[in-house]
């Protein structure tokens, strides 16, 4: 070991090689990541984009024909697509807003000085529970509870909150709100956990001086807590918005997009276009539109991350 080092220093060629090695080293460490991402994101995205510009792909015996943006025109003017788009936006925006409210309320509650550490630890685990269940299990769970003969209908009927048994997941008027509710239930713990960490990072002095200035609880919350949490709120909301737009499993396994497309979102619509109707060009076009929406949101997300870095 020592011998070889002595030789390294004595030979200029070796120093040059060492320098080059040092320059290439970071790429070497990154190479598995870059290979995987190139093979499984860059190439596929390029492929989807190309599919969206042609007709007759994959299953059609005729050779593909270049059609330019015709598929986009067809998709964007389609009523089913617009329905799915507006459902997706409703589903995502409501989910993000309510996730924020519940996540922050629970975090504030768990951060209360009036509770002992043990109590907090127990309730923290209970509040996080929805997060450990996978979407397909959450789907089963809520199909059980929201079944027309299920326990939720029973309780609501007994309390006279609803006049008759509701078909939560198969009534056109209720289904979208029902799946949104399920998504809210399953997603708020992520916010709660992040807010808890954020709240613990706010220095006590800020509150002390706020109190000295005569601020009440609401003013302290409004002028200290919220501004301090701002960076977390922004990145969480953007990330969650992107994830909710992606959401497939939950809807696929609760309503499958039905009844009568009342819960059809972009991802279930794409899946059906590709794997039930075998219209791969159309499916690719919708997939590109989803990608465009997510990329648009992601730009803000990346910016907010970079701001937090600086």
């Amino acid at each position, binding site marked *: 070991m020592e011998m070889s080092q002595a030789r390294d220093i004595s030979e200029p060629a070796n120093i040059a090689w060492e320098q080059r090695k040092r320059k290439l080293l970071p790429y070497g460490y990154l190479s598995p990541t870059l290979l995987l991402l190139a093979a499984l994101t860059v190439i596929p995205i390029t492929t989807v984009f190309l599919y969206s510009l042609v007709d007759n792909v994959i299953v059609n015996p005729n050779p593909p024909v270049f059609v330019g943006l015709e598929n986009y025109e067809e998709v964007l003017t389609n009523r089913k697509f617009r329905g799915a788009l507006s459902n997706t936006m409703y589903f995502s925006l409501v989910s993000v807003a309510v996730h924020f409210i519940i996540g922050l309320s629970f975090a504030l509650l768990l951060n209360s000085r009036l509770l002992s550490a043990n109590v907090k630890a127990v309730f923290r685990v209970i509040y996080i529970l929805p997060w*450990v269940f*996978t979407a397909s299990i959450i789907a089963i769970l809520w199909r059980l509870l929201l079944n027309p003969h299920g326990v939720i209908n029973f309780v609501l009927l007994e309390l006279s909150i609803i006049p008759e048994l509701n078909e939560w997941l198969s009534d056109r008027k209720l289904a979208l709100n029902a799946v949104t509710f399920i998504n809210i239930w399953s997603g708020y713990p992520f916010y709660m956990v992040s807010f808890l960490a954020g709240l613990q990072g706010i220095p006590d002095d800020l509150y002390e001086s706020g109190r000295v200035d005569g601020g009440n609880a609401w003013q302290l919350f409004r002028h200290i807590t919220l501004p301090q949490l701002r960076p977390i709120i922004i990145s969480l909301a953007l990330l969650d918005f992107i994830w909710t737009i992606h959401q497939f499993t939950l809807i696929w396994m609760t309503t499958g997009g039905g009844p009568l497309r009342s819960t059809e979102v972009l991802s279930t619509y794409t899946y059906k276009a590709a794997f039930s109707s075998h219209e791969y060009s159309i499916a690719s076009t919708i997939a590109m539109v989803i990608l465009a929406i997510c990329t648009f949101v992601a730009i803000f997300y990346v910016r907010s991350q970079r701001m937090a870095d600086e």
Partner: protein
Amino acid sequence: MIGSRRQILVRKILVWIALILGACFSGLPVLWMVASSFKSNLEIFAYPPALIDHSFSFDAYRAVLGDPARLRFFFNSYLVAILVTICTVVTSILAGYSFSRYDFRFKRTLNLIIIGVQSVPPITLMIPYFGLIVWLGIYNSYTALVLTYMVFTLSYAIIMMTGYFNTLPRDLDEAVMIDGGGSFVTLWRILVPISLPGIVAVGVYTFMLAWNEFLFALTLTRTNDMRTVPIGIHLLMGQHSFEWNQMLALSVLGSLPVLILFLLFQRYFIAGMSAGSVKG
């Protein structure tokens, strides 16, 4: 501004009421699911409903655990999740080290791409994956699942790992370098051992994602002997007669690994999570 004793008591009561209401919201559905998995299939929607009724038994669990086809779902889920976790952890340590300790051209761009990958919708990749995976000859194989899952676990893992390495002082690795250790030795002997909490967080997070994945498992596997737990549940739902109790028992059993991991590593996990995703 600290109120009287009475005021504090009132506040305490209000906080407890809120606390219990919140626990009902998050905990009761789960409790109901677990309780229902012990009922007979006929009693699942009995009127009036009861949390525990006369049909209480372990029959559903016996049916699930006694069926080799369903045990296979568990085996597949474990195998895939563990492989994904190992591959993701190793790859993200290497990448995180590179981002944290080196300056190089395109560093910023590559970092942005990796953050950006988080926002690529799985459904967008689904259509070309199908063709790509068939072309590579790995359709209906563990390899296909491991590689595709990594696309979605890796970027988050790298962000978390880079964040963790950034919190460790550079003096540490420089000391080793001066002593003649190479860069890989530094990483392996010095950084990896002290980064164990971060690595555990990345591992647990990755395992959870892989254990829960649905869309790729559904599309990239064909035969029942390759299916994972979430797909197994889906298949049960597709059958004509709903075996609710068995479906619920399978769900409870399918959630246990993640729940146990989570309870064991809660602290690491939450710390790593908040360091990685959201820098406040």
